């Protein structure tokens, strides 16, 4: 069955191989392959963020954001927890300028810091930041020490005090672990926006990739005044506010 390769065949084969390499090198094949982002790990080429314009956002819309979050992630139905024990992933906050008396309402949730203090203090590495900037609790590793709740300047994290059943299948939650806003990571990975941002019809809440120069959030941040809450802590938050 041995086949001798003559000169003509050899040239044919090598030219075919050269064409194959060129196709891959052109980048088109590689781009198509990477299209399904869920198969590949997230990278730090993106950084997810949110811009909340408190001038445009009404109090009703903020309440709508809170209930959209409850609906999406299944918190808020705890019956045995009282007062401060109740989980709160996002809350409506009123701030008053003492000099002028101007009252502003804003939704406050995990700010998804670039330098998260909750990650620094976690003894088990359960509190973690994904490559794309989303700060999460790995409940598999969480021992419920609540150091992260102490460390968070935004009071964004909650501890689950009671046994839970009937959780959302995309959002496991359980007694003895700490939880907080995940920026609806399960939706973001599917290419959707977080439930709270989706519940607001106007452009008062913009979600997107902070690094992408063509994204709406990036372009808006270039134009309008915006601030980070407790910017003095240099945490470089992913959630920015405009109008406060």
């Amino acid at each position: 069955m041995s086949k001798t390769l003559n000169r003509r065949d050899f040239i044919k084969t090598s030219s075919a191989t050269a064409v194959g390499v060129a196709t891959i090198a052109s980048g088109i094949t590689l781009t198509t392959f990477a299209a399904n982002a869920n198969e590949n790990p997230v990278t730090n080429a993106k950084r997810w963020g949110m811009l909340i314009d408190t001038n445009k956002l009404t109090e009703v819309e903020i309440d709508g954001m809170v209930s959209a979050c409850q609906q999406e992630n299944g918190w808020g139905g705890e019956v045995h927890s009282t007062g401060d024990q109740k989980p709160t992933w996002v809350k409506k906050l009123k701030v008053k300028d003492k000099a002028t008396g101007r009252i502003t309402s804003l939704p406050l949730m995990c700010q998804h810091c670039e330098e998260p203090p909750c990650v620094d203090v976690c003894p088990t590495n359960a509190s973690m930041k994904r490559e794309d900037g989303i700060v999460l609790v790995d409940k598999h590793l969480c021992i419920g020490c609540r150091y992260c709740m102490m460390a968070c300047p935004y009071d964004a994290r909650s501890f689950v005090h009671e046994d839970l059943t009937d959780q959302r299948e995309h959002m496991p939650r359980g007694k003895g672990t700490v939880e907080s806003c995940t920026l609806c990571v399960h939706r973001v990975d599917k290419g959707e926006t977080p439930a709270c941002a989706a519940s607001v019809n106007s452009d008062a809440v913009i979600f997107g990739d902070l690094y992408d120069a063509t994204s709406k959030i990036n372009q808006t941040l270039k134009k309008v005044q915006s601030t980070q809450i407790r910017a003095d802590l240099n945490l470089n938050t992913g959630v920015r506010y405009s109008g406060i």
Partner: protein
Amino acid sequence: MYRLVTVLMVLLVGNVFAHGHPGHPNLGEEASSIKASGKIFHTDGLSVIRMMHPEFLNHKRDKTLREGVRTKEGSLKGCVNCHANKDKKTNQYYSVNDKDQFCSTCHQKVSVSVDCFSCHRTTPRKGTK
């Protein structure tokens, strides 16, 4: 004496038939229908999934949570969706970790307590996201 031997024989034979239940009563709604259709879901073989499922699940949990890889292989949601049984009368799903349900059957026998379901949902949630 013969009567005693007969009684013992009947008990023994009865025992054998009691364990030889046709099919798997707690295999789960969808898994049973896949099995009945002759398709094989766990293509690596049942012994692999029986022995290795804790490793698959642990590996997948880190991939999903920490890296955002959301493929179907090794997904606990997939296990629950396939292996949950329904109560025929009420048309409600049993929890997969209830006594004598899919997960518990073996774990009870080998005295392994799993902690998946203190956080994870134990029944399929069809028709919703």
